[in-house]
């Protein structure tokens, strides 16, 4: 009996001492993504990308010997859910870092929660506000809205366009874009003569494009999500209004080109290089990374790669790079991300700094156009 008691004691002690160490062989990474819901076009490819990358990293032995345990939470683009998932991941799951959310609204809601929880958050959402003002633990991988606006205006200058019309859908994305465009336009000597907001669920926009036509604008900029970005293109061409149509970087999915059909031809928009990887020169530093991601993703999921999945790719790879360098200390990893330079990702080449938690510059965007139903680099 005494022997049994002693054995039990020994086993218990062993468990207490060794088991946590065994469990700690993995590293928990949380992800809050809009896998379903109105922003599933962002969240679904992001979740796929994370799963694919995690498997690849784990099959090669993980990060510094520890395998990644990926916990994906589907927020359905609902900020309320994002908040409770963020708390759950930080307080209960005690994750090492959070990737996502997919949308700007959700990210802005959990920004302060991650700050308080001292947990690194690498967002896959676009809005400038996520990293401006800089929050210590919050980073983001997609290019800033303002770069998209600047890139569009630079192209307009080249084309000699001075008077433009701006139309946006009444979503957070659309309204943020409108604010950026209106703020930056004067710097490039461009006059926004008409600026309109339409219902994101509008079924037809003929009256609106008629108004634009009547104001004699030389180009139209549309900042919205589907289906409105296809409807506006169709309606413009149908009424015989043939000025150049610029879309936001949100147009970067070949599905939208298919939805707009013949009306998509000639649309100009800024996007990352992923969409035109085949026509990039071999000297482009991003080309090998992009080629591999595109090939892996498309052969695995049988759907065309979109820039959105790339945002998640960058988020996870940046985190992995920083952990490899700094070990498993959250504070040190945070510092390592902040000092990461020259990381070649899907969105561009990242150079972080204490004042820049995005790390991308304006050259991460290229101007694309649609030709014969395909994306191609716009010939200057």
């Amino acid at each position, binding site marked *: 009996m005494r022997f049994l008691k002693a054995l039990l004691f020994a086993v218990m002690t062993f468990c207490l001492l060794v088991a946590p160490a065994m469990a700690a062989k993995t590293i928990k990474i949380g992800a809050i993504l809009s896998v*379903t*819901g*109105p922003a*599933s*076009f962002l969240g679904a490819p992001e979740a796929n990308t994370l799963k694919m990358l995690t498997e690849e990293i784990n099959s090669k032995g993980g990060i510094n010997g520890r395998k990644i345990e990926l916990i994906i939470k589907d927020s359905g683009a609902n900020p309320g859910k994002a908040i409770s998932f963020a708390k759950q991941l930080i307080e209960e799951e005690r994750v090492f870092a959070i990737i996502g959310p997919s949308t700007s609204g959700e990210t802005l809601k959990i920004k302060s929660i991650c700050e308080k929880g001292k947990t690194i958050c690498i967002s896959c959402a676009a809005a400038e506000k996520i990293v401006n003002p800089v929050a210590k633990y919050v980073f983001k991988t997609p290019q800033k809205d303002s770069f998209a606006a600047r890139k569009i205006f630079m192209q307009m200058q080249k084309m000699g366009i001075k008077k433009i019309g701006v139309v946006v859908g*009444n979503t957070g994305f659309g309204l943020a874009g409108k604010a950026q465009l209106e703020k930056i336009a004067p710097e490039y000597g461009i006059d926004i003569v008409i600026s*309109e*907001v*339409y*219902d994101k*669920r509008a*079924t*037809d926009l*003929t*009256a*609106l494009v*008629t*108004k634009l*036509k*009547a104001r004699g604008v030389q180009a139209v900029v549309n900042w919205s999500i*589907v*289906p409105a970005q*296809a*409807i506006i*293109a*169709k309606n413009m*061409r*149908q*009424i*015989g209004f043939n000025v150049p149509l610029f879309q936001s970087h949100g147009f970067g999915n070949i*599905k939208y080109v298919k*939805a*707009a*059909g*013949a*009306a*998509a031809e000639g649309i100009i928009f800024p996007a990352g290089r992923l969409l035109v990887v085949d026509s990039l020169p071999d000297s482009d530093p991003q080309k090998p990374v992009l080629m591999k991601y595109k090939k892996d993703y498309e052969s695995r999921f049988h759907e065309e790669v979109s820039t959105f999945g790339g945002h998640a790719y960058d988020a996870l790879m940046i985190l992995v790079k920083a952990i490899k360098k700094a070990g498993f200390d959250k504070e040190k990893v945070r510092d390592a991300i902040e000092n990461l330079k020259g990381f070649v990702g899907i969105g561009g080449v990242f150079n972080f700094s204490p004042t820049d938690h995005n790390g991308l510059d304006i050259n991460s965007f290229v101007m694309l156009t649609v030709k014969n139903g395909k994306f191609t680099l716009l010939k200057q």
Partner: protein
Amino acid sequence: MNLDLLFQYIAAGLTYGFIYAIVAIGFNIIYNTTGIINFAQGEFVMLGSMIAISLHPFMPLFPAIVLAVVITMLIGAIMEIAFFRWIESPTILRMIIITIGLSILIREAALAIWGENVRALPYFTGNEVTSVSILGARVSPQVLWVVGVCSVTVLALQAFFKFTRYGWQMRACAVNRDAARLCGIKAKNMVTLSFMLSAGIGALAGCVVSPITYSQYNMGVPLAIKGFTVAILGGLGNYLAAVAGGIVLGIIESFSVWVLPSAYKDSIAIGILLIILFFRPGGLFGSKEELALKEF
């Protein structure tokens, strides 16, 4: 403001108007036989277009549309037989609440089946950029299809209710269901028939508007709201009035965009609707006396 632009605004208004009207007609059929508003009408529109889009890879466009209409009619019949026929005391309020529940159910089922992708049927004539010129205004040929289908539907319904036995029986049920039953009319079958008819017309509407508006699992809601508005504006239960109401609302919306920022489009349209209903509670073409006889 030159004349071409004026006509262009009118053309835009007519486009909106006929899209709303073709949805509104479905509301009126069920209202006429049962006195209820079927809040799942928008879901019939969505089902029709989504089914047609799913069938189209396997067959030409027109058989796909016909088959989609037939399938949606069957769904309408099943819906009525499963949820309405067995209600012991079918009060108006109870039935309306069932239609709201069904609309949510169908929408969620559609989300599970088709996901959230935006799809569309191809343009019946030409493609996304084709347009024809009428009085200097340029419209897509698909708009003419909507106008044509809407007109034929209204005429066919008028003929059906005026000249056929089933049409008479359905009208009799609408006037007084108990009296109709005493005359030997199977009132319950008439209700089923009205659900089938309005499901079919909803599906047809979904197919013709799909190239213009695109189709998605939740497309029914905004269309149903506008269709409902138009049905009320014209005067519930009257098909021609629905078309007229649609044109009125469409033109108002279109011209509101001309003078004011387009963000106000819907508030102006709904504001004017409220004003009209304040002075004419029975709608533009309904009479007060008729309204007083109705339960709802």
